[in-house]
């Protein structure tokens, strides 16, 4: 259906929701176009053609209106709204259990993604952390919990292959979570206008096995380290209600 390849656990639910909505609205669209086309051909002005004088305010018209209103509300609105709530709960509504999830912190800054891994002790802000730029490595098969706080303006953490998007705001913590099913390298896009080089804010999401990710983190830590200075801005933006 034209979507990028789906590599997430719940992504297919969204594709299916799109399919249902597509066929329902297409049916309504074809009905409108069919009646429109029929009227233009059948009722075009011709010599001797007399229009039927009616204000369409009789009982029949009223019943037709009520019937259509009911059909549209129940057939399209309620139908899609209920499915949407189910898909939303599965896709975004139920945050994973932090203990089991693979947690990272992402702090977008004008035109780069700062990413922090907690390291073995599972705590952020300790010396075994790792900070990288635009490179996110996550394990497949395990829910990933991403905490987002922006350093300057509003950015939006967009993973098209995982069908999720979450704005990152300064002074507010937002969360995004997904579970990868396929390994491989995918792209991270910034979906909220964040400045003159908004288009350059591209990141990479590498999905590997647990071992590969752990080994990558250990290897990269010698090179990059924790860079605590950068993350002082992160703690300063903490709000009680986060």
């Amino acid at each position, binding site marked *: 259906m034209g979507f990028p390849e789906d590599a997430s656990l719940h992504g297919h639910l969204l594709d299916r929701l799109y399919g249902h909505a597509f066929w329902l609205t297409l049916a309504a669209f074809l009905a409108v176009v069919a009646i429109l086309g029929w009227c233009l051909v059948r009722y075009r002005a011709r010599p001797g053609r007399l229009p039927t004088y009616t204000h369409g305010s009789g009982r029949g018209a009223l019943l037709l209106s009520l019937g259509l209103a009911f059909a549209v509300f129940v057939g399209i609105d309620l139908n899609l709204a209920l499915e949407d709530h189910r898909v939303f709960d599965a896709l975004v509504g139920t945050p994973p259990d932090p203990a089991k999830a693979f947690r990272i912190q992402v702090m977008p800054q004008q035109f780069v993604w700062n990413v922090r891994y907690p390291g073995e002790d599972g705590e952020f802000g300790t010396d075994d952390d790792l900070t990288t730029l635009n490179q996110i490595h996550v394990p497949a098969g395990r829910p990933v919990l991403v905490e987002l706080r922006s350093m300057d303006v509003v950015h939006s953490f967009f993973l098209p292959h995982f069908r999720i998007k979450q704005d990152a705001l300064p002074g*507010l913590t937002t969360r995004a979570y997904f579970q990868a099913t396929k390994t491989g390298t995918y792209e991270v896009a910034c979906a909220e206008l964040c400045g003159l080089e908004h288009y350059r804010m591209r990141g990479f999401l590498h999905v590997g096995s647990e071992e590969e990710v752990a080994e990558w983190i250990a290897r990269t830590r010698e090179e990059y380290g924790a860079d605590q200075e950068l993350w002082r801005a992160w703690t300063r933006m903490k*709000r*009680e*209600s986060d």
Partner: protein
Amino acid sequence: MNAATGTARLMRPAVVYGWLAVLTAFELAVVRVPLGRGATASLLVGSALAKAALVVLHFMHLRIEGRILRAIALLPLLLVVAFVVALIPDIGARR
């Protein structure tokens, strides 16, 4: 201007003036008495609404105006209150 009977249902300006003065004094007093925050807030808001109603109904003659002017006055008020209340869970709750 207004029909003679209409203005009869409006309080005389002096009486309204009296009430407004009393309520203002009351508000100043309430702030000095150490009641709980909630009590002080509700008393102050109550007094402010009373004063506002007095001015709108009696000084602005809304009490004797037709349906159209009452609707024009009431509609934006309801919209604003609904809009602000809708913001509370999203902005107000972010302590």
